[in-house]
């Protein structure tokens, strides 16, 4: 056990840290309150800058234009991005999920055609996985693709597509054989979002913004060379994509939580409770200390998990505890913030009385989705029950 960075890791960190210090845009703090739509070109330009600096596609092999970072370097990358308060990258899904899927399952032609433009943010990607009637039970999805000569003809409806409103391309899971068990008739297609027959409707969410979209497909023609992996073996490709969802990105999230925590501790000194500083109120102290401790436990859990993946080479189902831990922790943290801020916690940034431009009101609502997105807490507990503890399948 050695929890210090190796000299190699330190060198990577220092190089990245000085690059970020020189390149992270200074006006991000003001622009982060803007709507996703209005700041999208800004995020695209930021990713372009990272790409030109050689830092986009941190986990991707060098031969595909990536950074070729090993697992610990990826962890450091996300930590440093968070520490530098860097904006997110425009093509989050392309870089994190879809590019790695194409690298793992795609043809050489597909790699040549798509990967470089993912890295440069020239083409933005979304995922077409969930449907109105297929969420946690993804394999029951109904969007169908019928073979017609050198094309598949796609009909159906997808929902909760992050970046669906801006995406140029979509990694789409469709049913190509309705006559076999549900996991065995699926195929993954790469679909041009400008194809005829696609209509996109932004999905307004609880926070008022539209991170997601609904996408419907009516007789959309997709060339057969756009199949990723083998026909009717799309489940393996889709699961491969989802495994990347529980990658190293959480290392940055931990830093973000820690910063929120530090800010709450600062704020506690400026609020009163029972005639004294809230920072001296025994109950508030208990709650802040609990959150502070859990954010540290999150870090130690991650460090252990990353070390295990590093040793074994594969992210195991134990990763499900990370997802449960951070999502439920963030909800508790946001609730503690609300208790500390009292009536001020609900104020939007447009109120002259708001705290921190309304981020706590937004954070409270946004965190509600944490236990749903990227696999609900219930599904994560099923994964632990069945795949880690060996209990019988419950469904």
């Amino acid at each position, binding site marked *: *056990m050695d*929890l*210090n*960075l*190796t000299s190699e*890791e330190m060198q990577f960190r220092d190089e990245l840290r000085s690059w970020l210090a020189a390149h992270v845009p200074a006006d991000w703090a003001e622009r982060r309150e803007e709507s996703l739509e209005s700041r999208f070109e800004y995020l695209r330009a930021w990713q372009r800058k990272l790409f030109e600096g050689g830092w986009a596609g941190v986990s991707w092999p060098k031969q595909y234009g990536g950074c070729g970072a090993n697992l*610990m370097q990826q*962890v450091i990358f996300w930590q440093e991005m968070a520490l530098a308060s860097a904006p997110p990258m425009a093509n989050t899904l392309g870089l994190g999920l879809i590019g790695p899927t194409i690298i793992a399952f795609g043809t050489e032609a597909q790699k040549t055609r798509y990967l470089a433009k993912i890295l440069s943010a020239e083409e933005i990607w979304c995922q077409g996985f969930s449907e109105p009637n297929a969420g946690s039970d993804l394999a029951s999805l109904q969007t169908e693709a019928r073979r017609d000569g050198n094309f598949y003809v796609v009909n159906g409806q997808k929902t909760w597509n992050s970046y669906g409103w801006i995406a140029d391309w979509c990694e789409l899971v469709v049913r190509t054989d309705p006559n076999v068990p549900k996991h065995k008739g699926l195929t993954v297609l790469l679909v041009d979002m400008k194809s005829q027959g696609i209509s996109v409707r932004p999905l307004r969410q609880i926070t008022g913004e539209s991170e997601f979209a609904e996408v419907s497909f009516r007789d959309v023609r997709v060339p057969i060379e756009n199949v990723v992996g083998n026909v009717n073996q799309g489940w393996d490709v889709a699961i491969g994509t989802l495994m990347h969802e529980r990658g190293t990105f959480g290392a940055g999230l931990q830093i973000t939580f820690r910063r929120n925590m*530090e*800010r709450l*501790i*600062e*704020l*506690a*000194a*400026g609020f009163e409770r029972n005639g004294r*500083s809230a*920072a*001296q109120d*025994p109950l508030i*102290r*208990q709650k802040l*200390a*609990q959150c*502070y*401790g*859990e954010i*540290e*436990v999150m870090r*130690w*859990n991650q*460090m*252990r998990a*990353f*070390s295990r993946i*590093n*040793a074994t080479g594969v992210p195991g189902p*134990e990763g*499900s*505890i990370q997802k*449960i*831990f951070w999502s439920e922790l963030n909800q508790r943290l946001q609730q503690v913030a609300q208790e500390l801020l009292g009536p*001020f916690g609900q104020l939007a940034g447009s109120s002259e009385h*708001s*705290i*921190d*431009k309304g981020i706590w009101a937004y954070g409270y609502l946004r965190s509600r989705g944490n236990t749903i997105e990227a696999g609900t807490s*219930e599904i*994560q*507990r*099923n994964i*632990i*029950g*069945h795949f*880690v*503890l*060996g*209990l*019988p399948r*419950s469904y």
Partner: protein
Amino acid sequence: MQFGLNESQEILKQNARQFFAGECPMTHVRHLAESKQPYDPALWSKMAAQGYTGIIFPEKYDGLGLGKVELILLLEEAGRALLPGPFWSTVAVAGAVIDAVASDAQKTKYLARICRGEARSTLALVEAGAAWDLADASLVAANGRLTGEKLFVLDADVADFIVVAAPSGVFLVEAQAPGLSVTPMPALDLTRHLYAVQFKDTPAEKLGEGANLTRALNIATAALVAEMVGGMQRVLDLTVDYAKMRKQFGKPIGTFQAVQHQCADMYLETESSRSAAYYAAWALEHDAPDAATATSIAKMYASDACRAVGNRGIQIHGGNGFAWENDLHLYYRRAKASETMLGDATFHRERIARLVIDPVSASCGGNDRSSR
């Protein structure tokens, strides 16, 4: 960065698991508990032969000279086996305190006996105010003699000498010293016993100042958390086995999500406590700046987690879990005792607040709420 065990640590842990499984099976634990024997001297000698009683102490005192990570791996396995008796209090508490505060001559005299398995010991810390940090201690030490009472002293009746924390320093009292009386405080844990210890003008040898006591107590706390983790792991294993075997409505109850999700939570709580125990041990070994905070976080988290794991385990076992002949209650009792020992979650949250909130409040007073 590598947060995993190295090969020799892995071997130590596996050996300890096999050792306790062979030498201290549950039948033996039950036998000791039901016959009210505080510990098994023959088992103690075998543990000493393995080097366990001197694991973290320097070789010049006949110890093994290993680190805090090795200590917690050993305690984790002892906790899994529900090892009865004064191992934790002798090695991880009294031994760690002597090592931290005493002179070379005193270590040769006392610590070496612990290392060789010749002596058992414990720490007398808490008084009637039940504070775990000497804040309310009133034991009087004058002219080499102690007068007063300490409570909740583990294993005091088998201690060959008792280490005593007083406001004016750390002392050592031999078991035969005049004016020393040890009275049982019957409590929940049937495998590790508590005592009230009275001192009436009792001769005592001063070991050193209290300044280094905190660091030794942090080592003891991390070791206790590790022991709790071992207990949690055992309860989880027993419960998962039961959920696979016990059938209702024609299928194993582990099929039902109401049961399965509780098992998943037990796994999460156990693994998270383990991460915290390992990190705290590493931080203490390397005197990391966050070592004290990490230790309190570990005890905070594990104190709540071990209670939750025990509750879920018994709930899933249904009536069988409530039965005397089931082993679960022995773990459940130890878990409750350990939850309180050296401060429960509430105590450690306040300690964390002092470490991480107070320095910030002191420096930023009436800050501007909108200046993020």
